[in-house]
């Protein structure tokens, strides 16, 4: 059986339980859409960016992949966080990585984060009717340092000091709005991101597993994983 991997930021795969249907008698993953529910996040700091994501892919109630890597390299110091259809976002990321690599060779310079984001935007906007892709582009370049660009479904592009996305992000708007401060250090950003993703994973059934983090600076990319037993814990009963 070929599953179409779909990360839906808002809707989860649903079975239509109509009277007379057998939807309730068979396990829901036999007829549910594959969905990587997702929580993704990126935060700028002076000197780079921190990006983070959960690691869950679901097919209805079945977790098809509990260690997914949703943080994808586009270039040496530019990553993207993917939410929406896994197939769509993988295809777009591959295409942009190719275009960016070519562009960088022609310029004989590392590419700008803004350029990578623009390439995502061009593709996501042109094919907006056919795509389900919510992407956060983040990285470091020598012109403007760390930058975060959000390219949500529909294909707009906006620069933000931090951005959250995916189905789990709804639950943490209040948390990030209250906790974000300008001028955080890299370590503070890592803690902020880990806490936010952990809170979302706690509340969103489609997000879970481990927290994958990466810090991108002039010096390179530093990847981290926070395993289940090391997740930040909160004391709500």
């Amino acid at each position, binding site marked *: 059986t070929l599953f179409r991997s779909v990360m839906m930021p808002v809707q989860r795969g649903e079975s239509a339980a109509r009277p007379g249907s057998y939807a309730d008698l068979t396990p829901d993953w036999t007829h549910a859409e594959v969905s990587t529910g997702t929580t993704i996040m990126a935060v700028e700091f002076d000197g780079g960016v921190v990006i983070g994501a959960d690691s869950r892919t679901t097919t209805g109630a079945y977790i098809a992949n509990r260690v997914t890597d949703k943080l994808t390299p586009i270039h040496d110091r530019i990553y993207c966080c993917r939410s929406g259809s896994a197939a769509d976002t993988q295809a777009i990321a591959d295409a942009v990585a190719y275009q960016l690599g070519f562009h960088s060779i022609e310029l004989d310079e590392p590419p700008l984060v803004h350029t990578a984001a623009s390439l995502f935007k061009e593709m996501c906007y042109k094919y907006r009717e056919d795509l389900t892709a919510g992407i956060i582009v983040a990285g470091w370049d020598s012109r403007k340092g760390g930058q975060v660009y959000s390219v949500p479904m529909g294909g707009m592009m906006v620069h*933000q000091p931090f951005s959250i996305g995916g189905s789990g992000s*709804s*639950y*943490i*708007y*209040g*948390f*990030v*709005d*209250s*906790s*974000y401060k300008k001028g955080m250090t890299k370590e503070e950003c890592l803690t902020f991101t880990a*806490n*936010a993703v952990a*809170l*979302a994973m*706690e*509340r969103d059934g489609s997000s879970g597993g481990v927290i994958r983090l990466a810090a991108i600076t002039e010096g390179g990319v530093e990847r981290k994983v926070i395993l289940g037993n090391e997740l930040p814990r*909160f*004391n*709500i*009963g």
Partner: protein
Amino acid sequence: MDITGDASEVRTGTTIIAVEFEGGVVMGSDSRVSAGESVVNRVFNKLSPLHERIYCALSGSAADAQAIVDMAQYQLEMHSMEVGAPPQVIAAANVVRNISYKHKEELSAHLMVAGWDRRKGGQVYGTLDGMLTRHQVCIGGSGSSYIYGYVDSAYKSRMSKEECLQFVTNALTLAMGRDGSSGGVVHLVTITKDGVEPKLILSNDLPQFYDNE
């Protein structure tokens, strides 16, 4: 309420929250009532008394919510007279829950019940979908999705009354900042053995949070 020009039902989009503390409860709500894209009331108080020291917070369909409150107020008053004592909060919660459960297919309103009684002090009950669950913190309404993370991280057990008031105000402000169906002013109510203390916080007095600058 006249909603000509827009056939959408009048809904209290809403963010509501109730917190227990030592000696009572603090409840809070926003004040927006919408009919489609219009705000038909921007100063509505969604905290409704069910009895002297028991309040409920309304969300969902405004008409359904008010109908439930009316029925619950009546039933609780009768119950209180028959028993010859102020009703327990759990009794009020059960009255609301039974109405919500019996008519769950027709109703689209959700109420949470909170108050103070002599037996168990401050209590908060959720009656979502006709369940009855006790909580230390209960949040509801469309705006509540956005503050699950905040509430999970900021709530500490054994907060004082003042800390609860600040916590509730912060949570409502954050939700109102992200939910289009929540907004206006913040209505608060503190219920203890000494009675009921309402409070109103106007928009310009709300705490400031990150706002995309």
